[in-house]
């Protein structure tokens, strides 16, 4: 039985890595039927699979379409497992909250969605504001949700100033220290992040997860 469980969790992780949505659902159903703990299955199956997918993405084995399909398989499995989580586990640990969005003027959200997926599978609670979001809205949401991290993305050079504006407003309102600000997107660079006073710059989605862990001292 123990053997069977390990094997099933491994297969579930593989289904995510192999972008196989149907297989992920099928395995999740077997796992539920076998009475295996849903929380463990999410952690050792689905999240483990996404971690491998993220690594393959960093190694340039996988690119964005592949990563998106892995996350589809992951979410499909999650849909089956989630209702079987024991209540206490759902509320057991307070997750670190991240407010994420694409800055005003920009509607390119591929990068933002990837970061969201990877952060979510790494155990963060994500408040996704969507795209074309004004600087003040980021701040309002972060305050309201008591978030630790504000993650802002842009893909257009024309909107980069909005990223600086978020930090300017935080300083103006004397709450800069309450939040860690992470920036990313094609035209953004480490130099730009330093210049505007962001806490970190993520060159890609996989890096964003690592940086988020650093910013929150490994708590996620």
């Amino acid at each position, binding site marked *: 039985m123990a053997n069977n469980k390990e094997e099933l969790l491994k297969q579930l992780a593989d289904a995510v890595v192999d972008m196989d949505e149907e297989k992920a659902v099928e395995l999740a159903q077997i796992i539920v039927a076998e009475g295996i703990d849903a929380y463990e299955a999410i952690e050792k199956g689905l999240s483990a699979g996404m971690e491998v997918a993220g690594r393959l993405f960093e190694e340039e084995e996988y*690119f*964005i*379409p592949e990563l998106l399909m892995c996350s*589809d398989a992951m979410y499909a499995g999650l849909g089956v497992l989630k209702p079987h989580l024991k209540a206490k586990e759902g509320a057991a640990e307070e997750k670190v909250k991240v407010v994420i969005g694409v800055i005003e003027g920009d509607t390119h959200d*591929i990068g933002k969605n990837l970061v969201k997926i990877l952060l979510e599978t790494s155990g963060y609670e994500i408040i996704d504001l969507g795209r074309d979001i004004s600087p003040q809205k980021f701040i309002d949401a972060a305050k309201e949700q008591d978030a630790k991290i504000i993650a802002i993305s842009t893909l257009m*050079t024309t909107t980069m100033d909005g990223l600086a504006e978020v930090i300017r407003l935080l300083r103006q309102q004397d709450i800069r220290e309450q939040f860690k600000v992470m920036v990313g997107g*094609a035209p953004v660079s480490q130099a*730009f992040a330093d210049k505007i006073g962001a806490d970190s710059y993520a060159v890609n989605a996989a890096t964003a997860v690592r940086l988020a862990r650093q910013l929150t001292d490994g708590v996620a």
Partner: protein
Amino acid sequence: MSNFTPKERLLKVLHKEKTDRPPIICPGGMMNAAIVDVMNRGGHVLPIAHSDDKLMAELAVDVFTNTGFENLGIPFCMTVEPEVLGSDVDYGSMKCEPKITQEVFSSSSAVDFHEFAVMLQTGRVNTVMQATYNVARRFPDIPVIGNLTGPVSTAASIVDPMIFLKDLRRNQLAAHKVMEYVSDFLIAYAALMIDNGADVISIADPTATGEILGPRMFCEYPLVYINKIVEAIHSQGVPVIVHICGNINAVKHALPELKADAISTDAMVNLRKLKEEFPKLITMGNVSTYLLEMATPEKVVNNTRHLLREGIDIIAPACGLSTSTPLDNIKAMSGAVKEK
């Protein structure tokens, strides 16, 4: 020794012939130079110039006369094509470029295919054509560059981009059908630009980068369809510039297969090395848009001179310019090219 008109110079370079010096251009479209400084001087402003042919033409002329760029570029956004194909567009503001507010189709399989003949009379197609005709007639010695949104970017602007990217892999038949449709539309649209006086066509396809798609899909989709568009434009005797965003490492090996006459890249790409690797390539670029926005004119001049020393064939900004880029920095860049 400047016996070349800007049009002759650019066309010669694109035909791999010798000239006195590299042209300095900013094609338009995604890479346009309608910065706030220029609009304040000329008084022809965005966003209304996106949909008024006379203002669009005047703004192109303002950019030309103020910046020192040796071309006229039309239009000033990447949304003309997706708008015609059905997506909703917000024209933005003076500082902010237009954007797609909602892609019209939820997946590649859901795309409705329409007749081009009808579509080419809708949206802002006519605005773009009138503006092109207007500037081409007034400036016979200056190259007019017609700008296309590349096929992957256009497709991902009419189909939800997250879904479309997945369709490239899991629903290839439908994705290819959409790419085929979009490419045929772009061919017909570019042909109209050429009929109205465009001397060069520039294609920017920011969704089709190696970083997003990876090498396998880059070769299966954008390479095939961009080449199809380039060949159709070539058959009208017009050269084509292709801009590839981001880091090109993952797809570098495929670049010689691109049939474009010049390849423009982002600032992180070392164009000298690219030329060493592929000596036949005509390179264009890649003055950092970050420098152009943030640095002093001296630094911009240094960056530009460096590219000149490295033998880059056409000097241009590396990517889309921020609308808050100071005009002095742009003049410093064009001045550095012309000072020889």
